[in-house]
């Protein structure tokens, strides 16, 4: 009897289609849980660790001395404090941008070669997806604490904020078109309100993620590139200043959320 009332209330609020919706959502949740117990991203993490330690590039050096913000060679916890300002490049950088820097400075790749092939395609894997998985996983369970104190970090936040609301293109879309309200969906996909810490903490901390629909790990850079594709914008440049500014903007609301990356998504 204790449980009957809420069920009745729910039933009264829901038409048939609504019940079907809830069932679908429940099934998707169940599927997620099943997969999470054996996230294929594990394989990417392992390959990423190998790549991290392997001597590569013209200088035949590994990435083991790469400074991800906590000092040269410190991987543990580094992802939980990104994006951040780096004095050697005098820029705010996210994980992928920083990996590109280390490929250039430590391994001797040209800047052009260092950003080649950031996103895998059928039959072509991407080192970046593996490296990002490895580094992110080394912050699992830690709370996101992206700094916002250096003037360039504050500047990036303010630019990211402007870009979040910027409408353009044939569909008049901005980030806020899909991510400005709580509890909305595009088709069946739930959309986070990215300026609400409750949503932002859950979402930002689960990238990179293995995407079931794409059969690979996708990074935060890919997520943004894909959003702009859907927004009918041209191709967002990899590790561009706009992409990093948007990440700094999102990180502010996501700070405090526990890193659960690589995540598992549709």
């Amino acid at each position, binding site marked *: 009897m204790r449980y009957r009332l809420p069920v009745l209330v729910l039933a009264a609020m829901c038409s048939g289609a609504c019940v079907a919706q809830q069932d679908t959502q429940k099934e998707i949740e169940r599927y997620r849980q099943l997969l999470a117990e054996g996230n294929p991203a594990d394989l990417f993490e392992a390959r990423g660790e190998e790549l991290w330690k392997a001597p590569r590039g013209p200088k035949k050096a590994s990435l083991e001395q790469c400074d991800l913000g906590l000092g040269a060679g410190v991987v543990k916890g580094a992802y939980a404090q990104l994006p951040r300002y780096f004095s050697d490049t005098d820029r705010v950088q996210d994980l992928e941008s920083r990996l590109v820097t280390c490929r250039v400075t430590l391994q001797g790749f040209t800047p052009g070669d260092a950003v080649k092939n950031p996103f895998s395609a059928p039959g072509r894997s991407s080192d970046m997806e593996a490296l990002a998985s490895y580094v992110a996983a080394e912050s699992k369970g830690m709370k996101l604490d992206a700094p916002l104190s250096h003037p360039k970090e504050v*500047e990036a936040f303010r630019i990211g904020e402007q870009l979040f*609301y910027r409408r353009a293109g044939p*569909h008049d879309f901005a980030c806020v078109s*899909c991510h*400005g309200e709580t509890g*909305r969906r595009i*088709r069946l996909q739930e959309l986070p309100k990215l300026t609400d810490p409750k949503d932002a903490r859950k979402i930002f901390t689960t990238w990179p993620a293995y995407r079931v629909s794409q059969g690979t790990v996708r990074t935060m850079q890919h997520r943004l590139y894909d959003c702009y594709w859907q927004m009918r914008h041209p*191709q967002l440049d990899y590790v561009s200043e706009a992409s990093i500014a948007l990440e700094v903007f999102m990180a502010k609301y996501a700070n405090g959320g526990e890193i659960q990356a690589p995540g598992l998504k549709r």
Partner: protein
Amino acid sequence: MKILLVSIYAALVLIVLNAGCAGGVREGGPDDGARERAESVFRASFTHGNREMAAKVDKQDEVQELCTRYRNEPPKELAEKIESTQAAAVRYPASGKFLGDWRQGEKIAQDGYGLRFTDPDAKRPNGGGCYNCHRIAPAEISYGTIGPSLYRFGALRGAGEPVQRYVYGKIYNSQAYLACSQMPRFGHNGVLTEEQITHLVALLLDPESPVNK
């Protein structure tokens, strides 16, 4: 007396805070600098793709610029101005016929093709992608909720000429009715043709459409 002073003080603080916010985000405030910098960062961040596409997003039209500036909540006077200029720009079908074929409308509502940088087939017509945001015909349960449900639209509102004209205008240019609406201006921006829009009008209004059955 003390309470009165406290209230006056509180009111003053509120006024100052509000003014600060308004100035900060809207016009003339410190964020104007951030906006300009954001514009140059934006232009510098889309350099590898299609140049024609980039030129179109680099330059916002007046409505996009205003809705960005006011974060989709323009003050009343400005909202009215946007609505009237957008309404004046709606081009209604020369034939005077608003009602197309609901079956074709359903296909357009389902289809999300077009105008993405991987959509090279210019001969294939653009879709409306309506189900991304709206519930429409009841058989499709994979619908979005960014926009309101349109199920039973015609059955609830009637399907006479004024309603047909409204629906056509709303799809052609949503901002003719609501300034800074999140809905794309499908006709105004050339995403959908006049004929495609009449098919969508039929999907919502035709008594034979599954929307109204």
